[in-house]
């Protein structure tokens, strides 16, 4: 950082530091460090004569010659030598610091030198590698759940999320079911569906077969075909969304034929109307079919009061977006939670949580937790971070960006035959 004349007075109260053996990137990193972490107490100068401290990268090729040259011309100069190895220099006023540098310790070292305190010549500061994650501040409280009435949930919140995610027709994927009272089991009938009896169930069974045998599986339903490639993890079909979606809502029972095939038939062998083939990554296809099938409902036999887990985030850049998916994934990967609690905690309609869960379950990354402890305790609501308003504004900026282009990046390719 080269300073102008007007800042010279200010510089007088600060300590000049020069560098030997660093490239511009490293110097820039130190400049940021001085400016932010050391509160502008130091500044970078290229002039060795005017600096009080010189920091040397000992791992730079043939740097020793330059150091001895500097020492001869400025014998009182305080040197700080950074090195991966414990290279020693036979020079007074030289403190050896072992890389990697811990910024807290390094700031203390500079401060001590600045204050004229005596510092050990070997200030090895490799940080202790404590690989255990810091305990989260989340504490647990005994289970006692209350369901917020549906009316308290903000429709604006969801409308914003849907708009910002670029999802203009969300009802197709999450339906329009209102929230139910989770204390009334009779209402559960409104929010359950049976994928086993639908095309979704056949798709999952077919994919399992393709994956296990690493082969091509053909699904035939209502004379339409879908090919599942167990090796390449893809689904191919001539069906467009306007045909596929209604198929997903029909009860198929045992009408879907699932069979192994050697190859996808050529154009001549196929129906002449099948001019286009849509190729999907298998996860994107299963996710989409599950959303269409569930329409904001959960699988039959799901215990709504038991915590559910999410073992990993769905690959949301390549899946059909639904509002609140990122929020649900973030919350659920922290700790297993009952589905009703997620909706309450995030203040969103239940159908988004149910739809997300059903699709994630179809991908095999979510399910009802079997750990007893998860059912006995519920995670305490996380305290809002101090910088939430900044995070929120940044989110608004980013969501605006993603909605502009996400539709065009949805996951399928079209092959023209």
């Amino acid at each position, binding site marked *: 950082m080269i300073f102008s004349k007007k800042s010279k007075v200010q510089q007088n109260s600060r300590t000049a530091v020069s560098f030997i053996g660093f490239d511009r990137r490293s110097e820039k990193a130190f400049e940021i460090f001085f400016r932010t972490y050391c509160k502008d107490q130091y500044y970078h100068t290229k002039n060795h004569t005017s600096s009080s401290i010189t920091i040397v990268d000992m791992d730079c090729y043939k740097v020793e010659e330059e150091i001895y040259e500097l020492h001869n011309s400025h014998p009182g100069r305080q040197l700080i030598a950074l090195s991966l190895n414990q290279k020693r220099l036979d020079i007074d006023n030289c403190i050896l610091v072992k890389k990697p540098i811990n910024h807290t310790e390094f700031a203390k070292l500079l401060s001590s030198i600045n204050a004229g305190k005596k510092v050990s010549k070997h200030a090895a500061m490799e940080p202790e*590698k404590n690989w255990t994650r810091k305990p989260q501040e989340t504490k647990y409280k005994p289970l006692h759940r209350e369901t917020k009435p549906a009316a308290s949930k903000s429709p604006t919140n969801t409308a914003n999320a849907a708009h910002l995610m670029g999802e203009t027709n969300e009802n197709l994927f999450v339906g329009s079911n209102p929230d139910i009272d989770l204390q009334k089991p009779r209402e559960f009938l409104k929010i359950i569906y049976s994928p086993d009896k639908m095309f979704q169930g056949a798709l999952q069974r077919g994919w399992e077969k393709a994956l296990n045998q690493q082969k091509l599986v053909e699904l035939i339903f209502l004379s339409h075909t879908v090919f599942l490639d167990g090796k390449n993890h893809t689904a191919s079909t001539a069906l467009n969304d306007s045909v596929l979606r209604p198929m997903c809502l029909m009860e198929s029972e045992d009408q879907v034929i699932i069979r192994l095939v050697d190859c996808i038939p050529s154009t001549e062998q196929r129906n002449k109307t099948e001019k286009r083939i849509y190729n999907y990554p298998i996860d994107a296809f299963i996710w989409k079919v599950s959303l269409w099938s569930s329409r904001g409902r959960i699988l039959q036999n799901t215990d709504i009061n038991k915590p559910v887990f999410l*073992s990993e985030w769905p690959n949301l*850049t390549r899946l059909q977006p639904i509002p609140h998916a*990122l929020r649900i*994934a973030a919350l659920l990967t922290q700790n297993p939670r009952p589905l009703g609690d997620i909706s309450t905690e995030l203040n969103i309609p239940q159908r988004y949580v149910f739809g997300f869960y059903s699709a994630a379950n179809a991908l095999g990354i979510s399910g009802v937790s079997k750990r007893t402890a998860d059912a006995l305790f519920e995670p305490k609501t996380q305290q*809002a971070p101090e910088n939430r308003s900044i995070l929120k504004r940044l989110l608004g900026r*980013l969501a605006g960006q*993603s909605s*502009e282009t996400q539709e065009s990046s949805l996951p399928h390719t079209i092959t023209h035959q």
Partner: protein
Amino acid sequence: MSNFKIVFSGPVGAGKTTAIASISDFAPVSTNENASDMTRERKPQTTVALDYGVMKLDGREKIHLYGTPGQERFNFMWDILTSGGLGLVLLLDNTRKDPLKDMTFFIDSFRDYISQTALAVGITQTDIASVPRLDIYNKKLREMKISAAVFEVDARKQADVSLLVQSLLFTIDPGLEY
């Protein structure tokens, strides 16, 4: 006025410069020079000065976007770069020889920082190399006891990078609302 920082890291050629460029308000300040070492085979030019971008928020706040050097020999600087950051966006190139090893290396290097902030992982070049698949990365992360979003990302696409950074924000605070 408050300033916040998001750090982008990952091996050479993973797309850090491109990712910052795709969401920054202005073209990132970066100095690319001819690579002089083993990195030349992967990328003729490599970043030798900081990648730096900015997202201006309404009000006077700014989010600074910093890209770390990809070359491993610079890793002694990472601790300095990350101080005061909101979280780490780790980009991994799926065409590299052992991207899982890359992930382990970078997570171990940033382990303390990640434990105090948050991590989001973007896998690039999956159109060229489809394996390792994402479930393998997720499995490795679980073994390392790290919780993070792992997305396929095209660093040139603003929507991909934006979603990845959004996942980082929700990891910090799932209670955030749009």
